[in-house]
């Protein structure tokens, strides 16, 4: 029996509740929470970049908790094998049969910590799960759980001994979220919250109440996909992606996946804002997280000290907002 579809108001309420619950434990990272929620609503995956200790694991745990989802975590290391991600077949002496041992990828939310520390072979094992939503073990394909979302983290410092993600794999991530230090006030709140009446050094996700069920997530995704988008907005998103290909600061621009991700993310953003239609502002807001990992600066611009985000801001200032 299929679940009844949600109407817009219900969807907006549920999303807002999730947002509030997560913000109770993940202090001072509201934009990051929003972007992760957007990626989940838009059935995308997130690449999170930030220095250690800013609550990336906590965020994933909190998200999993608020929809009662299964949470899996893999710490990527140089000796990690693809089967450590997906799982493997094991010979059972008793039954004289091969038994499939499912890897950590069989979960709703997979945290791939420091993904660039593993070699390309292991990284690409994630590709299939991310793109096809299925996991192949010993030639047999198993569907991934629904919803399924990968949150991969990268450390911007300590690049030694890492394997930078190839362009094709980067393209698979819908958003690249930059996680930064909280503000002074937020950090004070965080310290108070952690040290008062608690012995552990990390915030516990116990405070989070499950506000939606795992089955609600596909329904929310469905509502998101139904958000109205005017042709002018489609045109705007495509123009942004296309102009990055000719933009002088970029050695290579964003592909068609960027346009698709831009619209999907803009839809989710509109839902988060409580609207049932997408405006050009939604597209413009999502342009940075959607595109920053899909473009590469030219060597000259890198030497000039230009950052990808700065170049994208310049590009957005040049692309005309929708014509009507």
């Amino acid at each position, binding site marked *: 029996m299929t679940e009844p579809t949600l109407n817009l108001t219900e969807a907006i309420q549920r999303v807002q509740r999730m947002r509030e619950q997560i913000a109770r434990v993940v202090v001072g990272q509201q934009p990051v929470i929003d972007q992760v929620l957007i990626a989940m609503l838009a059935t995308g995956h997130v690449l999170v970049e930030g220095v250690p200790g800013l609550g990336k694991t906590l965020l994933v745990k909190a998200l999993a908790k608020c929809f009662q989802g299964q949470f899996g975590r893999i710490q990527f290391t140089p000796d990690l094998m693809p089967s450590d991600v997906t799982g493997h077949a094991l010979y059972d002496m008793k039954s004289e049969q091969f038994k499939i041992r499912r890897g950590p990828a069989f979960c709703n939310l997979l945290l791939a910590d420091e993904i660039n520390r593993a070699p390309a072979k292991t990284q690409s094992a994630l590709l299939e799960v991310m793109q096809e939503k299925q996991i192949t073990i010993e030639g047999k394909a198993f569907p991934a759980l629904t919803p399924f979302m990968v949150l991969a983290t990268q450390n911007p410092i300590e690049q030694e001994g890492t394997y930078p993600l190839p362009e094709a794999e980067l393209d698979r991530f819908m958003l690249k979220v930059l996680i930064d230090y909280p503000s002074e006030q937020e950090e004070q709140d965080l310290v108070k919250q952690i040290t008062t009446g608690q012995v552990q050094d990390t915030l516990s996700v116990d405070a989070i109440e499950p506000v939606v069920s795992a089955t609600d997530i596909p329904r929310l995704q469905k509502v998101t996909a139904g958000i*109205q988008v*005017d042709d*002018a*907005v489609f045109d705007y998103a495509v123009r942004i992606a296309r102009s990055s290909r000719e933009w002088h*600061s970029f050695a290579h621009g964003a592909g068609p996946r960027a346009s698709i991700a831009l619209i999907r993310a803009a839809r989710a953003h509109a839902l988060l804002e409580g*609207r*049932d*239609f*997408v*405006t*050009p*502002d939604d597209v*413009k807001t999502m342009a940075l997280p959607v595109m920053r990992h899909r473009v590469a600066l030219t060597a000259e611009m890198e030497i*000039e*000290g*230009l950052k990808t985000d*700065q170049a994208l801001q*310049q590009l*957005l*200032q*040049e*692309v*005309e*907002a*929708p*014509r*009507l």
Partner: protein
Amino acid sequence: MDLSKISVQVRPRNPYEAVDLGFVMARQWFMPLLWLWLIPAAPLMVLSYLLFMDQPLWALLLVWWLKPLFESVQLRYISEKLFDDRIRWQDTLRQAHKIALHQWFSKLVIQRLAFSRSFNMPVGELEQLHGRRRGQRLETLHRGAGSSGLWLTAVGNTLEGVLVFGVFSLAWIFIPMEMAIDFDFDMLYSSPLLFPTITVAGFIAMALVSPFYVCGGFMLYINRRTWLEAWDIELTFRQLSNEHQQRGKSLATLVMALLLLVPFTLPQPTKAQVTREESQLIIAEILESDDFHQIKEEQRWRWIEPPEDAAAEEDGMFKDLGKWLADKLEGWTLFDGISDWYSVIVALLEAILWGLVIALFAYLVYRFRGLRGPGLKLKQAAHAPPPSHLFGLELNQDSLPEDIVAAAQALWQQQQFRQAVSLLYRAALTFLIHERHLPLNSSHTEQECLRLCLKHESPPRGQFFQELTRHWIALAYAHRPLSSEDFDRLCAAWPDFDQQEPQP
């Protein structure tokens, strides 16, 4: 020495060309030169090595100290080879002991550490000069090429060092990997192999460098003599003379050629047939001749420092100008101490240059005033011409009807809701851009326009624009038409929005 038999082209060269020519010679006769060095030096090396078995560096030092002896043999060979190609190195080698031991004390003690050793060597070895005369001769020769001789020695020593390191490294890379694992480069210092290796490497380096060093110095010497004694001219006259003799030309031509030849051949010491006293007389005679007593008048400008009082009379005008400028500039600390005409010009020039620098700086500041980011693009100036199109809407004031509200209401009546609200929104933007000078551009979305309006405009105007934007967005992107009441409210509020007021 017969110049006509010289095997290189004689012409005045600069010192570096000369050294280069010397290197060409060294390459040409490298093997004979190497043998002439190795045959006396190698046995000595072996002998001294056996002698200082426990201190091999002493053996190397001994051979290094005796280097001038071996080099003098090389020098003799090269000097003879230059004028007579039939010379064999074996012949030179036979006389090696005589050549080497000639002036040995001078070579090994007095001259051993001379900076331009290879350049000096021919004076003692070939001209056979010593003592004070040698010193005078060297002084003359050094006047033009002394520093090159010094550099040649410096480069030669450096090259030896490099080669020692090279041979050393070559030995190092031949050590098998298995051994090298527990054989650190640092361990070489304490290794018993260190000093024997350095000794062998040093010996090879000296042998390889010496032909170049000797030939380079020798050609510097030859070149210096070419300059001093005009060898090239002498050679030309000799050739001329020879040609005429062979062709049996008239006696007069021959005499003339020979006459011309005489003065050039005189200064050459080897050709001198007169005694020292006689030559002094000849010189005195020549100096008394008319050639040295011609008086020639020349006129040229010369600066004469005029006395203080006379100066005022002579060039009063300039002086006055100078004094005036000096007085004017006196209080200026930049030009402290300006008192005379000359300094004023300098000061003026300085002022002009400073002015130029300041002007250049000002220009650069002006040129790159709006530079955003690292040298990429000029920011739009605060009052850049407003865009004529925004969101595809034409925003010229001329394109709008006179009475906006009436026109919008007319469209509304005709059921053209979208066009009606579009007209209001377009008129509002046009008003904000042209009348309120809001810095809107074509990349601004509706919300960005609204934010700018709320930031810069009065609250009532901001609220109206917010309301209008809300309805416009809902209509345009959600395809949700507004009610007639809402539209009427917008139309009613329009005159307040459109009203001119003094800019904040």
